[in-house]
């Protein structure tokens, strides 16, 4: 496989990591908006697509997901995929839990809390290099 065109498999660049983080955060907010949109409405997964799109929260979720997706594409262009995917997935997963904890008072069990701490430390270690 020719890797002479760009060196994104060798270096973790600051802009690539930043795009991964912002992209992951947007995906996380999108997941939260989608969850809230589906829960607050009478619509279910088997409802018609048109009715789903008319829900402002689901529309917001779609726009955020699209923006997050393209940021992740930019991140993949600048950073190794073995960094971009864990960072974006980790943040995308942690953010809705933190939002639910502070805004909805949902309980975070010990195991999940340890997982969140591991994810955040891992991202901090990757970012420290820059």
């Amino acid at each position: 496989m020719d890797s002479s065109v760009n060196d994104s498999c060798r270096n973790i660049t600051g802009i690539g990591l930043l795009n991964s983080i912002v992209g992951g955060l947007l995906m996380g907010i999108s997941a939260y908006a989608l969850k809230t949109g589906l829960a607050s409405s009478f619509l279910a997964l088997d409802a018609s697509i048109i009715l789903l799109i008319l829900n402002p929260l689901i529309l917001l979720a779609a726009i955020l997901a699209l923006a997050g997706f393209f940021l992740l594409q930019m991140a993949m262009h600048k950073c190794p995929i073995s960094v971009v995917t864990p960072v974006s997935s980790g943040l995308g997963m942690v953010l809705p839990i933190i939002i639910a904890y502070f805004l909805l008072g949902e309980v975070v069990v010990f195991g999940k809390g340890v997982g969140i701490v591991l994810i955040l430390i891992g991202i901090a270690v990757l970012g420290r290099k820059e």
Partner: protein
Amino acid sequence: MMVEIILSLVAATCYGIAASIQKYSMKTMKKFSVRKLIKNKNWLLSILVTFIGVVAQLFALKNLPLSTFQPFFGITLMIPVVVGALVFREKLKVIEWTAVLMIVAGILLVLVY
């Protein structure tokens, strides 16, 4: 139930493969451009694979609780990490691989609990 589990497996695998194809399509691109991406056949293939994953996920979630589906997401995560290391030969420092493994372990913990 068995069909839904297979569909979850298909969805998670599709997402992981799609991310790997996306990275592959970037390797020949000197400067990032959405226009170039849209014209890139490999990238379009990754979108098709993602779409197959979405359809499989929707059908899986119809009869499967989200808590059962979620652990399959670990496959989505592991495929790009393994492909990055073995196929793209991504060279990270030991501390960076440690950080990546910490994040992967953290995600698995979040998914399981």
